[in-house]
């Protein structure tokens, strides 16, 4: 019986697979249809640190059960375990080739073994120019939280600003940390935000800044956003100072639609907003370059205290994988996973510890698999 219930969705998926097609790998040279290899999607996989590997295993279980035509290229990539980590070049090359990646969270230690200031995360982002981080913060059904109906998108520049890794001690006891803002990158992220709003039918873009204090740096960012806004007359544009923004976010988060932020503010607002809808375990995000997308949880926590305890919430990772499937032109599968996760959360019978339940990661995963259904 259980064999049947598990396999019926799979059979349905296979029958309808003629309706969905994957994006063909563009790097490959054109081949004859007869000799074309099967057009499965390959995707780089970085499990990350902390509970990452457990969450990734959950995703793989779901993919296997749903029969999704995606092959993972897995890399162990870690800053806290540098001896075992795959070289940055290999990982970056794999992502550049596959153009999609599913990534857990990498732990960034507070100290540096080598004296180098840039973290592995930053190096990967800079190597691939993953400049735009998109976190879609959305109230999920069945998760208790202070606010209802939150639906905002936080777009963060993540290759410059405070994360320049340029710090030095000019005189003993005086450390200078450089925050770099460039017009080119500010315009690029502003345009990304407005294009995102246009594509997803959103109405408003809010630029988050602190230009009253950092008149030149954040001023340039703000000016670039204002300049871009002129090209989008049908989207409302507003500015908000970051301190006010965080207050508004916790008191009246429904007012926000799309937000565009420099690096550090984005990081803070991302985590703040994730906390509003249920924490680091339930919010999915993605980082975009011109050519590649890395799908990763929205709030950056490794949850290392739960390693091996089978208690982490795989929702964020599963939602990431659903977004990834939509991006590679397998939207039906993506919707299927999304619906199953929503159903499990809605029913509320299987909840992990972080959202007030007692179930394990594995139980949650099986509940999702059990609810996989072809969308009507």
């Amino acid at each position: 019986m259980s064999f049947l219930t598990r396999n019926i969705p799979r059979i349905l998926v296979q029958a309808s697979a003629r309706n969905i097609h994957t994006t063909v790998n563009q790097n490959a040279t054109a081949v004859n249809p007869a000799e074309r290899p099967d057009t499965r999607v390959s995707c780089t996989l970085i499990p990350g640190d902390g509970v990452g590997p457990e969450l990734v295993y959950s995703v793989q279980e779901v993919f296997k059960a749903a029969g999704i035509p995606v092959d993972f290229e897995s890399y162990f990539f870690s800053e806290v375990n540098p001896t075992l980590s795959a070289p940055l070049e290999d990982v970056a090359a794999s992502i550049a080739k596959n153009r999609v990646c599913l990534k857990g969270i990498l732990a960034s230690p507070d100290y540096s073994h080598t004296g180098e200031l840039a973290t592995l995360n930053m190096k990967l982002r800079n190597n691939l120019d993953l400049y735009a981080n998109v976190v879609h913060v959305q109230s999920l059904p069945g998760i208790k939280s202070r606010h209802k109906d939150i639906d905002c998108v936080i777009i963060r520049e993540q290759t410059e600003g405070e994360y320049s890794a340029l710090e030095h001690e000019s005189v003993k006891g005086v450390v200078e940390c450089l925050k770099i803002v460039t017009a080119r990158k500010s315009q690029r992220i502003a345009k990304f935000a407005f294009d995102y709003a246009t594509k997803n039918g959103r109405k408003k873009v809010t630029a988050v800044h602190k230009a009253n204090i950092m008149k030149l740096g954040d001023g340039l960012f703000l000016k670039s956003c204002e300049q871009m806004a002129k090209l989008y007359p049908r989207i409302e544009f507003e500015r908000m100072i970051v301190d006010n923004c965080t207050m508004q976010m916790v008191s009246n988060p429904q007012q926000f639609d799309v937000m565009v932020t420099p690096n550090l503010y984005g990081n803070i607002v991302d985590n703040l907003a994730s906390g509003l809808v249920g924490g680091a375990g339930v919010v999915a995000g993605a980082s975009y370059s011109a050519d590649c997308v890395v799908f990763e949880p929205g709030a950056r926590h490794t949850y290392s205290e739960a390693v091996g305890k089978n208690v982490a919430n795989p929702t964020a990772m599963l939602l990431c994988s659903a977004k990834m499937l939509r991006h590679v032109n397998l939207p039906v599968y993506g919707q299927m996973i999304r619906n199953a996760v929503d159903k499990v959360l809605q029913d509320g019978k299987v909840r992990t510890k972080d959202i007030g339940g007692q179930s394990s990661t594995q139980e949650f995963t099986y509940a999702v698999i059990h609810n996989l259904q072809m969308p009507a």
Partner: protein
Amino acid sequence: MACRILRKQPLKLGHNIIRAQSTMSAFEIQHKTPLIRKTEPIPVALYGGRNAVTMLPGGGIGPELMGYVKEVFKYAGAPVDFEVVEIDEKSEDNDDLDYAITSIKRNGVAIKGNIETKSESANVTSRNVAIRNELDLYVNVLNCKSYPGVPARQSNIDVVIIRQNTEGEYAMLEHESVDGVVESMKVVTKSNSDRVARFAFEYAKKNGRKKITTIHKANIMKLSDGLFLETSKKIAKEYPEIEHNDMIIDNCCMQLVSNPHQFDVMIMTNLYGSIVSNVVCGVIGGAGLLSGKNYGDHYAIFEPGTRNTGTAIAGKNIANPIAMLNASVDMLRHLGHSQHAELIQRAINRTVSEDHIHTPDLGGSAKSTDVVSRIIDHIMQDTRHW
């Protein structure tokens, strides 16, 4: 004295001077006077490998054809997101049009049906012309290639028509100087003629074409067409490997219907381009097959080759979808998604030339949807997962 002090200071207080210079560096100047130049190109709308493209469905059969394009793209997995901008053809103001132009500036690329301008008032210009002028799309390229299996007067034609797209007879400068006398100006500029000719020769070089023919009427319009002809002759000298000749427009039309195979690449001014492209389309099987490309320095617009709205056949499911689909293939190629372009192109060719699924304009009896579903069948065969 002051001068001497100033000149001395660097020697004495070299340390201070260097510091002063470094604080007044380009960095500071940049931040105090932000140099965001207006002409700076806008960053391209390419995110995670997916391009954003403006879609202007236009009037008549435009919206249904765009629907087919989206359908085919979905099955082919083409990484393109469309931003659809509707232009109200009856409106007297130009709000929608301005928005469409802004949208194309942001995205850099557009696919477009024919936009009707219903207003009779003299200050509402043709919107098609307005878009081309505003975006400075100075050249229109129409690759006229016969489809085997399509009934036509001539077979095996492969001609490229390159047309000046923004000036000439389309300058829209007309006035009634005396009652009963209307003057219409044809404007030919050296710079635009130069750009078109250079584009044509570069195109020929890149695509392995052998010969370029300049089409003109310089025997009558000695100055205007004369300038166009002179310019192309001058450019031709820089490309000795490509043969160049010229032909008068009336003779050209006759040659096109009797012996079109003598032509390879043709360049001409605006109005002649319009006429010649329609002649060639008629010779090889009609308006429903070919796609045209409009290029400027920064932007590109793809559209069906002959600019007809097809209002009479709108909504009847008999419009030929091939022209718009070919335009979408051109667009994919322009964006660099060559494999998706090949995939769709192959499906189109098989449907038209091998399966002979033809809409009434090609003498067949198939519906538009029949053609599209056969194309999708071919695409699915090529992209199956298992």
